[in-house]
Protein backbone atom coordinates (compact mmCIF):
# COMPACT_ATOMS: atom_id res chain seq x y z
CA UNK A 1 0.00 0.00 0.00
CA UNK A 2 2.99 2.28 -0.30
CA UNK A 3 1.77 2.97 -3.79
CA UNK A 4 -1.48 4.04 -2.20
CA UNK A 5 -3.25 6.78 -4.02
CA UNK A 6 -4.23 8.62 -0.90
CA UNK A 7 -1.82 11.51 -0.69
CA UNK A 8 0.06 10.91 2.55
CA UNK A 9 2.06 14.07 2.38
CA UNK A 10 0.35 16.63 0.31
CA UNK A 11 1.70 20.10 0.16
CA UNK A 12 2.73 20.82 3.74
CA UNK A 13 4.88 23.81 4.48
CA UNK A 14 7.94 23.56 6.71
CA UNK A 15 6.21 24.79 9.85
CA UNK A 16 3.54 22.19 9.49
CA UNK A 17 6.16 19.51 8.92
CA UNK A 18 8.15 20.33 12.04
CA UNK A 19 5.02 20.61 14.17
CA UNK A 20 3.98 17.21 12.91
CA UNK A 21 7.40 15.77 13.74
CA UNK A 22 7.39 17.15 17.28
CA UNK A 23 3.97 15.69 18.01
CA UNK A 24 4.83 12.30 16.56
CA UNK A 25 8.12 12.14 18.44
CA UNK A 26 6.33 13.12 21.66
CA UNK A 27 3.74 10.39 21.07
CA UNK A 28 6.51 7.85 20.51
CA UNK A 29 8.33 9.06 23.63
CA UNK A 30 5.24 8.75 25.78
CA UNK A 31 4.60 5.26 24.45
CA UNK A 32 8.13 4.24 25.39
CA UNK A 33 7.93 5.80 28.88
CA UNK A 34 4.49 4.30 29.52
CA UNK A 35 5.62 0.83 28.46
CA UNK A 36 8.74 1.00 30.61
CA UNK A 37 6.77 2.23 33.62
CA UNK A 38 4.22 -0.55 33.21
CA UNK A 39 7.01 -3.11 32.95
CA UNK A 40 8.58 -2.24 36.29
CA UNK A 41 5.84 -3.63 38.59
CA UNK A 42 5.84 -6.82 36.52
CA UNK A 43 9.53 -7.32 37.24
CA UNK A 44 9.65 -5.95 40.78
CA UNK A 45 6.92 -8.34 41.94
CA UNK A 46 9.46 -11.16 41.78
CA UNK A 47 11.72 -9.54 44.36
CA UNK A 48 11.45 -10.79 47.99
CA UNK A 49 8.15 -9.54 49.38
CA UNK A 50 7.52 -7.59 52.55
CA UNK A 51 6.91 -10.69 54.66
CA UNK A 52 10.22 -12.20 53.54
CA UNK A 53 12.00 -8.92 54.22
CA UNK A 54 10.55 -8.62 57.71
CA UNK A 55 13.76 -10.13 59.03
CA UNK A 56 12.66 -13.15 60.97
CA UNK A 57 15.13 -13.94 63.71
CA UNK A 58 16.22 -17.30 65.08
CA UNK A 59 17.06 -17.89 68.73
CA UNK A 60 19.48 -20.68 69.59
CA UNK A 61 20.40 -22.07 72.98
CA UNK A 62 24.09 -23.01 72.90
CA UNK A 63 24.18 -24.68 76.32
CA UNK A 64 23.55 -28.27 75.16
CA UNK A 65 26.27 -28.18 72.48
CA UNK A 66 29.37 -29.96 73.80
CA UNK A 67 32.91 -29.15 72.78
CA UNK A 68 33.60 -30.77 69.41
CA UNK A 69 29.92 -30.87 68.50
CA UNK A 70 28.19 -28.99 65.73
CA UNK A 71 24.52 -28.18 65.06
CA UNK A 72 22.71 -26.74 62.09
CA UNK A 73 19.80 -24.33 62.53
CA UNK A 74 17.68 -22.53 59.97
CA UNK A 75 17.65 -18.76 59.55
CA UNK A 76 15.70 -17.14 56.67
CA UNK A 77 15.62 -20.48 54.94
CA UNK A 78 19.37 -20.93 55.09
CA UNK A 79 21.39 -23.44 57.16
CA UNK A 80 23.46 -21.86 59.92
CA UNK A 81 26.44 -23.92 61.09
CA UNK A 82 27.19 -23.60 64.79
CA UNK A 83 30.39 -25.39 65.91
CA UNK A 84 31.74 -25.60 69.41
CA UNK A 85 35.38 -25.94 68.46
CA UNK A 86 38.08 -27.87 70.34
CA UNK A 87 41.24 -26.07 71.49
CA UNK A 88 43.18 -27.95 68.76
CA UNK A 89 40.85 -26.69 66.08
CA UNK A 90 41.19 -23.11 67.33
CA UNK A 91 44.94 -23.42 67.50
CA UNK A 92 45.04 -24.84 63.99
CA UNK A 93 42.98 -21.91 62.70
CA UNK A 94 45.17 -19.35 64.48
CA UNK A 95 48.35 -20.96 63.19
CA UNK A 96 47.38 -20.47 59.57
CA UNK A 97 49.16 -17.46 58.05
CA UNK A 98 46.79 -15.09 56.26
CA UNK A 99 48.96 -15.35 53.15
CA UNK A 100 47.96 -18.98 52.76
CA UNK A 101 44.30 -18.09 52.41
CA UNK A 102 42.44 -17.97 49.11
CA UNK A 103 40.19 -15.24 50.51
CA UNK A 104 41.92 -12.88 52.96
CA UNK A 105 38.71 -11.16 54.15
CA UNK A 106 36.71 -12.12 57.24
CA UNK A 107 33.31 -12.02 55.44
CA UNK A 108 31.72 -11.13 58.73
CA UNK A 109 28.77 -8.72 58.44
CA UNK A 110 29.21 -7.81 62.11
CA UNK A 111 32.64 -6.32 61.27
CA UNK A 112 33.85 -3.78 58.68
CA UNK A 113 34.00 -5.07 55.09
CA UNK A 114 37.79 -5.00 54.97
CA UNK A 115 38.40 -6.94 58.22
CA UNK A 116 41.10 -9.61 57.64
CA UNK A 117 40.19 -13.29 57.90
CA UNK A 118 41.87 -13.95 61.23
CA UNK A 119 40.30 -16.57 63.44
CA UNK A 120 39.41 -13.84 65.91
CA UNK A 121 37.44 -12.03 63.23
CA UNK A 122 35.65 -15.21 62.21
CA UNK A 123 34.78 -16.64 65.61
CA UNK A 124 32.21 -15.29 68.07
CA UNK A 125 33.40 -12.11 69.83
CA UNK A 126 35.16 -12.98 73.11
CA UNK A 127 33.95 -16.56 72.82
CA UNK A 128 36.48 -18.00 70.42
CA UNK A 129 35.31 -21.65 70.65
CA UNK A 130 32.08 -20.68 68.93
CA UNK A 131 32.00 -20.44 65.16
CA UNK A 132 28.65 -19.35 63.72
CA UNK A 133 28.39 -19.07 59.97
CA UNK A 134 26.06 -19.51 57.01
CA UNK A 135 26.67 -23.09 55.91
CA UNK A 136 26.57 -22.46 52.20
CA UNK A 137 29.52 -23.11 49.92
CA UNK A 138 30.47 -19.85 48.21
CA UNK A 139 31.00 -21.65 44.92
CA UNK A 140 27.49 -22.58 43.76
CA UNK A 141 25.45 -22.81 46.92
CA UNK A 142 25.71 -26.44 48.04
CA UNK A 143 25.84 -27.29 51.73
CA UNK A 144 29.29 -28.58 52.77
CA UNK A 145 29.71 -31.76 54.83
CA UNK A 146 31.43 -31.81 58.18
CA UNK A 147 28.65 -31.11 60.67
CA UNK A 148 27.84 -34.73 61.53
CA UNK A 149 30.46 -36.73 63.44
CA UNK A 150 31.15 -39.33 60.75
CA UNK A 151 31.40 -36.96 57.81
CA UNK A 152 34.58 -36.23 55.88
CA UNK A 153 35.79 -32.79 56.93
CA UNK A 154 38.42 -32.26 54.24
CA UNK A 155 42.21 -31.93 54.56
CA UNK A 156 41.94 -28.90 56.84
CA UNK A 157 39.53 -30.44 59.32
CA UNK A 158 36.71 -28.05 58.65
CA UNK A 159 34.15 -28.71 55.92
CA UNK A 160 34.14 -30.39 52.56
CA UNK A 161 31.73 -29.49 49.80
CA UNK A 162 30.61 -32.67 47.99
CA UNK A 163 29.50 -30.84 44.85
CA UNK A 164 32.79 -29.58 43.47
CA UNK A 165 35.34 -30.41 46.14
CA UNK A 166 35.90 -27.08 47.88
CA UNK A 167 37.49 -27.46 51.30
CA UNK A 168 37.23 -25.20 54.32
CA UNK A 169 39.37 -25.04 57.48
CA UNK A 170 38.26 -24.99 61.11
CA UNK A 171 37.44 -21.27 60.83
CA UNK A 172 35.25 -21.84 57.77
CA UNK A 173 37.81 -20.28 55.45
CA UNK A 174 38.15 -21.74 51.97
CA UNK A 175 41.50 -23.47 51.47
CA UNK A 176 40.95 -25.46 48.29
CA UNK A 177 38.83 -24.08 45.43
CA UNK A 178 36.79 -23.73 43.32
CA UNK A 179 34.95 -21.71 46.01
CA UNK A 180 36.25 -18.11 45.85
CA UNK A 181 35.30 -16.84 49.31
CA UNK A 182 35.15 -17.88 52.94
CA UNK A 183 31.76 -18.94 54.24
CA UNK A 184 29.81 -15.91 55.45
CA UNK A 185 29.14 -14.96 59.05
CA UNK A 186 25.49 -13.97 59.60
CA UNK A 187 24.40 -11.05 61.78
CA UNK A 188 24.01 -12.37 65.33
CA UNK A 189 24.48 -11.38 68.93
CA UNK A 190 24.61 -13.08 72.30
CA UNK A 191 21.43 -12.38 74.24
CA UNK A 192 22.83 -14.14 77.32
CA UNK A 193 25.90 -16.22 78.11
CA UNK A 194 24.56 -19.24 76.31
CA UNK A 195 21.98 -17.85 73.93
CA UNK A 196 22.32 -16.19 70.56
CA UNK A 197 19.85 -14.46 68.30
CA UNK A 198 20.60 -14.71 64.61
CA UNK A 199 19.26 -11.90 62.39
Amino acid at each position, binding site marked *: *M*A*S*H*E*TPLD*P*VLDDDEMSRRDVILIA*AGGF*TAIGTAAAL*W*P*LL*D*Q*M*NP*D*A*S*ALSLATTDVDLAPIEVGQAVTVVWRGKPIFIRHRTPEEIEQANATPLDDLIDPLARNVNLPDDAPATDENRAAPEREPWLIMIGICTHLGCIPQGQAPGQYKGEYGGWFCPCHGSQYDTAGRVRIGPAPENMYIPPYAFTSDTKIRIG
Partner: protein
Amino acid sequence: MAHPSTYQPRSGAEKWLDERLPVARLMHDQFMTFPTPRNLNYWWTFGGILTFILVAQIVTGVVLAMHYIPAEDRAFDSIEHIMRDVNWGWLLRYSHAVGASMFFLAAYIHTFRGLYYGSYKAPREVLWILGVLILLLMIATAFMGYSLPWGQMSFWAVTVITNLFSSLDAIVPGLGTTLVQWIWGGFAVGGPTLNRLYSLHYLFPFIIAGVVVLHIWALHVPGNNNPAGIEVKSPKETVPFHPYYSIKDGFALLMFLLLFGVFLFFAPNLLGHADNYIPANPLQTPPHIVPEWYFLPFYAILRAVPDKLLGVIALVSSIVVLFFVPWLDTSKVRSTSYRPVYRWFFWAFVVTCIALGYLGSQAPEGWYLFFGRVFTIYYFAFFLVVMPVVGKFERPRRLPGSITEAVLGHAEQPRSRKREAVA
Protein backbone atom coordinates in the same frame (compact mmCIF):
# COMPACT_ATOMS: atom_id res chain seq x y z
CA MET B 1 -8.71 -7.97 2.08
CA ALA B 2 -6.29 -9.61 -0.27
CA HIS B 3 -3.89 -7.06 -1.53
CA PRO B 4 -0.50 -7.37 -3.24
CA SER B 5 2.35 -7.50 -0.77
CA THR B 6 4.42 -4.35 -0.63
CA TYR B 7 7.01 -5.61 1.81
CA GLN B 8 10.57 -4.80 0.80
CA PRO B 9 13.33 -6.44 2.87
CA ARG B 10 15.66 -3.64 3.83
CA SER B 11 18.72 -5.68 4.72
CA GLY B 12 20.36 -8.97 3.91
CA ALA B 13 19.17 -10.45 7.19
CA GLU B 14 15.57 -9.46 6.51
CA LYS B 15 15.79 -10.93 3.03
CA TRP B 16 17.30 -14.13 4.43
CA LEU B 17 14.47 -14.47 6.94
CA ASP B 18 11.82 -13.49 4.42
CA GLU B 19 12.78 -16.38 2.13
CA ARG B 20 12.50 -18.84 5.01
CA LEU B 21 9.73 -17.51 7.27
CA PRO B 22 8.04 -14.39 5.93
CA VAL B 23 6.82 -13.28 9.35
CA ALA B 24 8.00 -9.71 8.86
CA ARG B 25 6.16 -9.64 5.54
CA LEU B 26 3.02 -10.91 7.24
CA MET B 27 3.18 -8.22 9.92
CA HIS B 28 3.94 -5.55 7.34
CA ASP B 29 1.11 -6.50 5.01
CA GLN B 30 -1.48 -7.26 7.70
CA PHE B 31 -0.79 -4.56 10.27
CA MET B 32 1.14 -1.78 8.55
CA THR B 33 -0.18 -1.35 5.05
CA PHE B 34 -3.44 -3.25 5.42
CA PRO B 35 -6.03 -1.26 3.43
CA THR B 36 -8.69 -0.06 5.85
CA PRO B 37 -11.84 1.87 4.91
CA ARG B 38 -11.24 5.52 5.61
CA ASN B 39 -14.67 6.12 7.12
CA LEU B 40 -14.38 3.93 10.26
CA ASN B 41 -15.68 5.73 13.35
CA TYR B 42 -14.56 5.40 16.96
CA TRP B 43 -16.80 2.36 17.54
CA TRP B 44 -14.27 0.51 15.38
CA THR B 45 -11.44 1.10 17.86
CA PHE B 46 -12.65 -1.53 20.31
CA GLY B 47 -10.99 -4.40 18.45
CA GLY B 48 -7.62 -2.87 19.22
CA ILE B 49 -8.66 -2.08 22.79
CA LEU B 50 -9.77 -5.69 23.30
CA THR B 51 -6.48 -7.02 21.99
CA PHE B 52 -4.65 -4.80 24.45
CA ILE B 53 -6.79 -5.95 27.38
CA LEU B 54 -6.39 -9.61 26.47
CA VAL B 55 -2.62 -9.23 26.51
CA ALA B 56 -2.74 -7.22 29.74
CA GLN B 57 -4.95 -9.86 31.40
CA ILE B 58 -2.62 -12.67 30.35
CA VAL B 59 0.47 -10.81 31.55
CA THR B 60 -0.97 -9.80 34.94
CA GLY B 61 -2.50 -13.27 35.27
CA VAL B 62 0.79 -15.07 34.71
CA VAL B 63 2.40 -12.82 37.27
CA LEU B 64 -0.38 -13.33 39.84
CA ALA B 65 -0.05 -17.09 39.36
CA MET B 66 3.48 -16.77 40.74
CA HIS B 67 1.98 -15.87 44.14
CA TYR B 68 -1.49 -17.41 44.19
CA ILE B 69 -2.07 -20.76 45.92
CA PRO B 70 -5.05 -22.77 44.59
CA ALA B 71 -5.78 -24.60 47.83
CA GLU B 72 -9.09 -24.49 49.66
CA ASP B 73 -7.60 -23.27 52.93
CA ARG B 74 -4.95 -20.98 51.49
CA ALA B 75 -6.41 -19.36 48.37
CA PHE B 76 -8.10 -16.48 50.22
CA ASP B 77 -5.02 -15.74 52.31
CA SER B 78 -2.67 -15.99 49.35
CA ILE B 79 -4.62 -13.24 47.60
CA GLU B 80 -4.45 -11.09 50.72
CA HIS B 81 -0.73 -11.86 50.77
CA ILE B 82 -0.55 -10.51 47.20
CA MET B 83 -2.49 -7.41 48.26
CA ARG B 84 -0.36 -6.73 51.30
CA ASP B 85 3.16 -8.07 50.91
CA VAL B 86 4.03 -8.72 47.27
CA ASN B 87 5.72 -5.75 45.60
CA TRP B 88 3.04 -3.99 43.54
CA GLY B 89 0.75 -6.91 44.32
CA TRP B 90 -2.23 -4.62 44.92
CA LEU B 91 -1.72 -3.06 41.50
CA LEU B 92 -1.43 -6.39 39.71
CA ARG B 93 -4.39 -7.94 41.46
CA TYR B 94 -6.70 -4.95 41.07
CA SER B 95 -5.61 -4.55 37.42
CA HIS B 96 -6.58 -8.14 36.77
CA ALA B 97 -9.91 -7.93 38.60
CA VAL B 98 -10.96 -4.56 37.18
CA GLY B 99 -9.47 -5.64 33.84
CA ALA B 100 -12.01 -8.46 33.64
CA SER B 101 -14.83 -5.91 33.90
CA MET B 102 -13.18 -3.65 31.33
CA PHE B 103 -12.73 -6.64 29.04
CA PHE B 104 -16.46 -7.32 29.09
CA LEU B 105 -17.37 -3.65 28.73
CA ALA B 106 -15.23 -3.41 25.59
CA ALA B 107 -16.42 -6.78 24.28
CA TYR B 108 -20.08 -5.81 24.68
CA ILE B 109 -19.53 -2.48 22.90
CA HIS B 110 -17.66 -4.33 20.16
CA THR B 111 -20.54 -6.83 19.81
CA PHE B 112 -23.23 -4.14 19.72
CA ARG B 113 -21.19 -2.29 17.10
CA GLY B 114 -21.10 -5.43 14.95
CA LEU B 115 -24.81 -5.88 15.49
CA TYR B 116 -25.67 -2.27 14.58
CA TYR B 117 -23.55 -2.10 11.44
CA GLY B 118 -24.41 -5.60 10.25
CA SER B 119 -20.80 -6.74 10.42
CA TYR B 120 -22.03 -10.34 10.63
CA LYS B 121 -23.48 -10.38 7.13
CA ALA B 122 -21.88 -12.12 4.15
CA PRO B 123 -18.99 -12.42 3.65
CA ARG B 124 -18.21 -11.98 7.36
CA GLU B 125 -20.27 -14.79 8.95
CA VAL B 126 -17.24 -16.77 10.09
CA LEU B 127 -15.70 -13.63 11.53
CA TRP B 128 -18.87 -13.10 13.58
CA ILE B 129 -19.11 -16.73 14.71
CA LEU B 130 -15.51 -16.66 15.90
CA GLY B 131 -16.35 -13.48 17.81
CA VAL B 132 -19.29 -15.15 19.57
CA LEU B 133 -17.00 -18.08 20.36
CA ILE B 134 -14.53 -15.68 21.96
CA LEU B 135 -17.35 -14.20 24.03
CA LEU B 136 -18.33 -17.68 25.21
CA LEU B 137 -14.73 -18.49 26.15
CA MET B 138 -14.47 -15.15 27.96
CA ILE B 139 -17.56 -15.95 29.98
CA ALA B 140 -16.12 -19.32 30.98
CA THR B 141 -12.74 -17.80 31.81
CA ALA B 142 -14.20 -14.97 33.86
CA PHE B 143 -16.38 -17.36 35.81
CA MET B 144 -13.42 -19.59 36.64
CA GLY B 145 -11.26 -16.62 37.52
CA TYR B 146 -13.90 -15.24 39.86
CA SER B 147 -13.84 -18.51 41.80
CA LEU B 148 -10.15 -18.22 42.64
CA PRO B 149 -10.28 -15.78 45.61
CA TRP B 150 -12.44 -18.44 47.28
CA GLY B 151 -14.59 -15.89 49.03
CA GLN B 152 -18.28 -16.35 49.72
CA MET B 153 -19.34 -15.07 46.29
CA SER B 154 -16.69 -17.21 44.57
CA PHE B 155 -17.84 -20.32 46.36
CA TRP B 156 -21.54 -19.83 45.86
CA ALA B 157 -21.13 -18.73 42.25
CA VAL B 158 -19.32 -22.01 41.59
CA THR B 159 -22.01 -23.92 43.44
CA VAL B 160 -24.88 -22.30 41.58
CA ILE B 161 -23.32 -22.31 38.11
CA THR B 162 -22.08 -25.89 38.29
CA ASN B 163 -25.50 -26.92 39.57
CA LEU B 164 -26.95 -25.65 36.29
CA PHE B 165 -25.71 -28.90 34.80
CA SER B 166 -27.81 -30.88 37.27
CA SER B 167 -30.86 -29.69 35.31
CA LEU B 168 -29.96 -32.44 32.85
CA ASP B 169 -31.47 -34.84 35.38
CA ALA B 170 -34.80 -33.78 33.94
CA ILE B 171 -33.82 -35.32 30.60
CA VAL B 172 -31.89 -38.41 31.65
CA PRO B 173 -32.31 -39.19 35.36
CA GLY B 174 -28.91 -39.22 37.05
CA LEU B 175 -27.05 -37.69 34.10
CA GLY B 176 -26.90 -34.21 35.60
CA THR B 177 -25.89 -35.42 39.04
CA THR B 178 -23.13 -37.59 37.62
CA LEU B 179 -21.87 -34.73 35.48
CA VAL B 180 -21.88 -32.27 38.37
CA GLN B 181 -19.96 -34.65 40.62
CA TRP B 182 -17.45 -35.09 37.82
CA ILE B 183 -17.04 -31.32 37.59
CA TRP B 184 -16.70 -30.99 41.36
CA GLY B 185 -14.41 -33.94 41.90
CA GLY B 186 -16.46 -34.71 44.99
CA PHE B 187 -19.94 -34.55 46.43
CA ALA B 188 -19.77 -30.80 46.98
CA VAL B 189 -17.73 -27.87 45.72
CA GLY B 190 -14.34 -28.10 47.41
CA GLY B 191 -10.58 -28.22 47.06
CA PRO B 192 -10.49 -30.41 43.94
CA THR B 193 -12.98 -28.07 42.26
CA LEU B 194 -10.85 -25.02 43.01
CA ASN B 195 -7.73 -26.72 41.71
CA ARG B 196 -9.25 -27.66 38.37
CA LEU B 197 -10.86 -24.24 37.94
CA TYR B 198 -7.43 -22.70 38.45
CA SER B 199 -5.81 -24.99 35.91
CA LEU B 200 -8.47 -24.22 33.30
CA HIS B 201 -8.46 -20.51 34.12
CA TYR B 202 -4.79 -20.52 33.19
CA LEU B 203 -5.42 -22.48 30.00
CA PHE B 204 -8.45 -20.70 28.55
CA PRO B 205 -6.90 -17.27 27.86
CA PHE B 206 -4.44 -18.93 25.52
CA ILE B 207 -7.31 -20.62 23.69
CA ILE B 208 -8.94 -17.19 23.47
CA ALA B 209 -5.73 -15.77 22.05
CA GLY B 210 -5.72 -18.53 19.44
CA VAL B 211 -9.31 -17.83 18.42
CA VAL B 212 -8.48 -14.11 18.32
CA VAL B 213 -5.80 -14.88 15.73
CA LEU B 214 -8.44 -16.71 13.66
CA HIS B 215 -10.84 -13.80 14.25
CA ILE B 216 -8.31 -11.33 12.85
CA TRP B 217 -7.51 -13.68 9.98
CA ALA B 218 -11.20 -13.93 9.17
CA LEU B 219 -11.35 -10.13 9.32
CA HIS B 220 -8.45 -9.69 6.96
CA VAL B 221 -9.91 -11.91 4.23
CA PRO B 222 -12.91 -9.70 3.38
CA GLY B 223 -11.49 -6.59 5.10
CA ASN B 224 -13.31 -4.29 7.51
CA ASN B 225 -16.97 -3.53 7.29
CA ASN B 226 -17.63 0.21 7.71
CA PRO B 227 -20.35 2.54 9.02
CA ALA B 228 -21.95 2.82 5.58
CA GLY B 229 -22.07 -0.96 5.32
CA ILE B 230 -21.13 -0.93 1.65
CA GLU B 231 -18.16 -2.55 -0.03
CA VAL B 232 -14.94 -0.73 -0.68
CA LYS B 233 -15.00 0.04 -4.39
CA SER B 234 -11.61 1.58 -5.03
CA PRO B 235 -8.27 1.83 -3.21
CA LYS B 236 -9.02 5.56 -2.87
CA GLU B 237 -11.58 4.64 -0.23
CA THR B 238 -9.02 3.01 2.03
CA VAL B 239 -5.99 4.15 3.99
CA PRO B 240 -3.11 2.00 5.26
CA PHE B 241 -3.78 0.76 8.79
CA HIS B 242 -0.56 2.35 9.99
CA PRO B 243 -0.31 5.21 10.79
CA TYR B 244 -3.97 6.14 10.32
CA TYR B 245 -5.72 3.57 12.45
CA SER B 246 -2.80 2.60 14.66
CA ILE B 247 -2.77 6.16 15.97
CA LYS B 248 -6.54 6.48 16.11
CA ASP B 249 -6.79 3.17 17.98
CA GLY B 250 -3.97 4.33 20.23
CA PHE B 251 -5.84 7.49 21.14
CA ALA B 252 -9.04 5.54 21.81
CA LEU B 253 -7.09 3.07 23.93
CA LEU B 254 -5.75 5.90 26.06
CA MET B 255 -9.25 7.25 26.62
CA PHE B 256 -10.32 3.76 27.61
CA LEU B 257 -7.35 3.41 29.95
CA LEU B 258 -8.38 6.64 31.64
CA LEU B 259 -11.72 5.04 32.46
CA PHE B 260 -9.93 1.86 33.51
CA GLY B 261 -7.66 3.96 35.75
CA VAL B 262 -10.57 5.63 37.52
CA PHE B 263 -11.86 2.22 38.64
CA LEU B 264 -8.46 0.70 39.22
CA PHE B 265 -7.00 3.43 41.39
CA PHE B 266 -10.01 5.08 42.98
CA ALA B 267 -12.79 2.48 43.16
CA PRO B 268 -11.23 -0.96 42.66
CA ASN B 269 -13.95 -2.76 44.61
CA LEU B 270 -16.91 -0.85 43.22
CA LEU B 271 -17.60 -3.45 40.54
CA GLY B 272 -17.06 -6.34 42.94
CA HIS B 273 -19.14 -7.59 45.83
CA ALA B 274 -18.30 -7.06 49.51
CA ASP B 275 -19.20 -10.66 50.36
CA ASN B 276 -16.22 -11.91 48.40
CA TYR B 277 -13.99 -10.55 51.14
CA ILE B 278 -15.54 -13.13 53.46
CA PRO B 279 -13.70 -16.45 53.17
CA ALA B 280 -15.77 -19.23 51.59
CA ASN B 281 -18.10 -20.93 54.04
CA PRO B 282 -19.69 -24.10 52.65
CA LEU B 283 -22.29 -24.07 55.43
CA GLN B 284 -23.77 -20.63 54.82
CA THR B 285 -25.03 -18.96 51.66
CA PRO B 286 -24.94 -15.15 51.62
CA PRO B 287 -28.42 -13.56 51.76
CA HIS B 288 -28.08 -12.08 48.26
CA ILE B 289 -25.97 -13.82 45.72
CA VAL B 290 -25.38 -11.78 42.63
CA PRO B 291 -23.00 -12.47 39.74
CA GLU B 292 -20.55 -9.89 38.49
CA TRP B 293 -22.24 -7.10 36.55
CA TYR B 294 -21.30 -8.49 33.16
CA PHE B 295 -23.34 -11.64 33.78
CA LEU B 296 -26.41 -9.90 35.17
CA PRO B 297 -28.48 -9.87 31.92
CA PHE B 298 -27.98 -13.62 31.53
CA TYR B 299 -28.75 -14.13 35.21
CA ALA B 300 -32.02 -12.21 34.78
CA ILE B 301 -32.93 -14.47 31.85
CA LEU B 302 -32.18 -17.57 33.93
CA ARG B 303 -34.40 -16.36 36.75
CA ALA B 304 -37.17 -15.21 34.45
CA VAL B 305 -38.06 -18.80 33.64
CA PRO B 306 -39.80 -20.61 36.50
CA ASP B 307 -38.59 -24.06 35.45
CA LYS B 308 -35.13 -25.37 36.21
CA LEU B 309 -34.34 -27.05 32.90
CA LEU B 310 -36.10 -24.43 30.78
CA GLY B 311 -34.29 -21.67 32.65
CA VAL B 312 -30.94 -23.23 31.85
CA ILE B 313 -32.00 -23.71 28.24
CA ALA B 314 -33.01 -20.03 28.06
CA LEU B 315 -29.67 -19.00 29.56
CA VAL B 316 -27.67 -21.06 27.09
CA SER B 317 -29.88 -20.03 24.17
CA SER B 318 -29.42 -16.35 24.94
CA ILE B 319 -25.79 -16.70 23.86
CA VAL B 320 -26.11 -19.52 21.34
CA VAL B 321 -28.72 -17.52 19.39
CA LEU B 322 -25.94 -15.08 18.53
CA PHE B 323 -24.27 -17.76 16.40
CA PHE B 324 -27.28 -17.76 14.08
CA VAL B 325 -27.59 -14.01 13.66
CA PRO B 326 -26.01 -13.99 10.15
CA TRP B 327 -28.91 -16.13 8.94
CA LEU B 328 -31.65 -14.76 11.14
CA ASP B 329 -31.30 -11.26 9.72
CA THR B 330 -32.95 -11.31 6.31
CA SER B 331 -32.18 -7.73 5.31
CA LYS B 332 -29.81 -7.09 2.43
CA VAL B 333 -28.68 -3.83 4.03
CA ARG B 334 -25.87 -4.03 6.57
CA SER B 335 -25.83 -0.73 8.40
CA THR B 336 -28.75 -0.01 10.71
CA SER B 337 -28.28 3.66 9.85
CA TYR B 338 -30.10 2.94 6.59
CA ARG B 339 -32.85 0.82 8.15
CA PRO B 340 -35.59 3.15 9.46
CA VAL B 341 -37.76 0.43 11.07
CA TYR B 342 -35.19 -2.02 12.33
CA ARG B 343 -33.37 0.85 13.97
CA TRP B 344 -36.12 1.25 16.58
CA PHE B 345 -36.07 -2.44 17.37
CA PHE B 346 -32.30 -2.34 17.66
CA TRP B 347 -32.29 0.42 20.26
CA ALA B 348 -35.13 -1.31 22.09
CA PHE B 349 -32.85 -4.34 22.20
CA VAL B 350 -30.00 -2.27 23.69
CA VAL B 351 -32.39 -0.93 26.32
CA THR B 352 -33.57 -4.49 26.96
CA CYS B 353 -30.04 -5.72 27.64
CA ILE B 354 -29.38 -2.84 30.05
CA ALA B 355 -32.72 -3.39 31.75
CA LEU B 356 -32.03 -7.10 32.11
CA GLY B 357 -28.70 -6.16 33.66
CA TYR B 358 -30.45 -4.00 36.23
CA LEU B 359 -33.12 -6.60 36.92
CA GLY B 360 -30.48 -9.28 37.34
CA SER B 361 -29.11 -7.32 40.29
CA GLN B 362 -32.49 -7.13 42.04
CA ALA B 363 -34.25 -9.77 44.06
CA PRO B 364 -36.45 -11.87 41.75
CA GLU B 365 -39.70 -10.69 43.30
CA GLY B 366 -42.76 -8.77 42.25
CA TRP B 367 -42.37 -6.27 39.45
CA TYR B 368 -38.70 -7.06 39.06
CA LEU B 369 -39.54 -10.60 38.09
CA PHE B 370 -42.40 -9.45 35.90
CA PHE B 371 -40.25 -7.07 33.90
CA GLY B 372 -37.49 -9.64 33.83
CA ARG B 373 -39.89 -11.87 31.94
CA VAL B 374 -41.06 -9.11 29.61
CA PHE B 375 -37.53 -8.18 28.65
CA THR B 376 -36.50 -11.81 28.32
CA ILE B 377 -39.27 -12.32 25.82
CA TYR B 378 -38.16 -9.29 23.85
CA TYR B 379 -34.54 -10.44 24.00
CA PHE B 380 -35.43 -13.60 22.13
CA ALA B 381 -38.11 -11.98 19.98
CA PHE B 382 -35.52 -9.54 18.68
CA PHE B 383 -33.46 -12.36 17.22
CA LEU B 384 -36.17 -14.83 16.32
CA VAL B 385 -38.97 -12.52 15.14
CA VAL B 386 -37.70 -8.99 14.52
CA MET B 387 -34.57 -9.92 12.58
CA PRO B 388 -36.23 -12.26 10.05
CA VAL B 389 -39.51 -10.37 9.71
CA VAL B 390 -38.41 -6.74 9.61
CA GLY B 391 -35.76 -7.55 7.02
CA LYS B 392 -38.44 -8.88 4.73
CA PHE B 393 -40.84 -5.95 4.93
CA GLU B 394 -38.72 -2.93 5.65
CA ARG B 395 -37.89 -0.45 2.86
CA PRO B 396 -34.34 0.71 3.58
CA ARG B 397 -33.18 4.22 2.87
CA ARG B 398 -31.16 4.77 -0.27
CA LEU B 399 -27.59 3.58 0.23
CA PRO B 400 -24.74 5.84 -0.79
CA GLY B 401 -23.10 4.81 -4.01
CA SER B 402 -19.66 4.60 -2.47
CA ILE B 403 -17.77 5.16 0.77
CA THR B 404 -16.53 8.44 -0.67
CA GLU B 405 -20.10 9.53 -1.13
CA ALA B 406 -21.04 8.32 2.35
CA VAL B 407 -18.27 10.40 3.88
CA LEU B 408 -18.71 13.51 1.79
CA GLY B 409 -22.44 13.43 1.20
CA HIS B 410 -21.81 13.68 -2.54
CA ALA B 411 -20.06 11.48 -5.05
CA GLU B 412 -17.41 13.80 -6.35
CA GLN B 413 -14.90 16.01 -4.68
CA PRO B 414 -14.88 19.40 -6.36
CA ARG B 415 -12.21 20.82 -4.09
CA SER B 416 -9.91 17.90 -4.41
CA ARG B 417 -10.23 18.16 -8.15
CA LYS B 418 -9.29 21.77 -7.95
CA ARG B 419 -6.25 20.88 -5.87
CA GLU B 420 -5.20 18.27 -8.33
CA ALA B 421 -5.55 20.77 -11.10
CA VAL B 422 -3.41 23.20 -9.17
CA ALA B 423 -0.83 20.58 -8.38
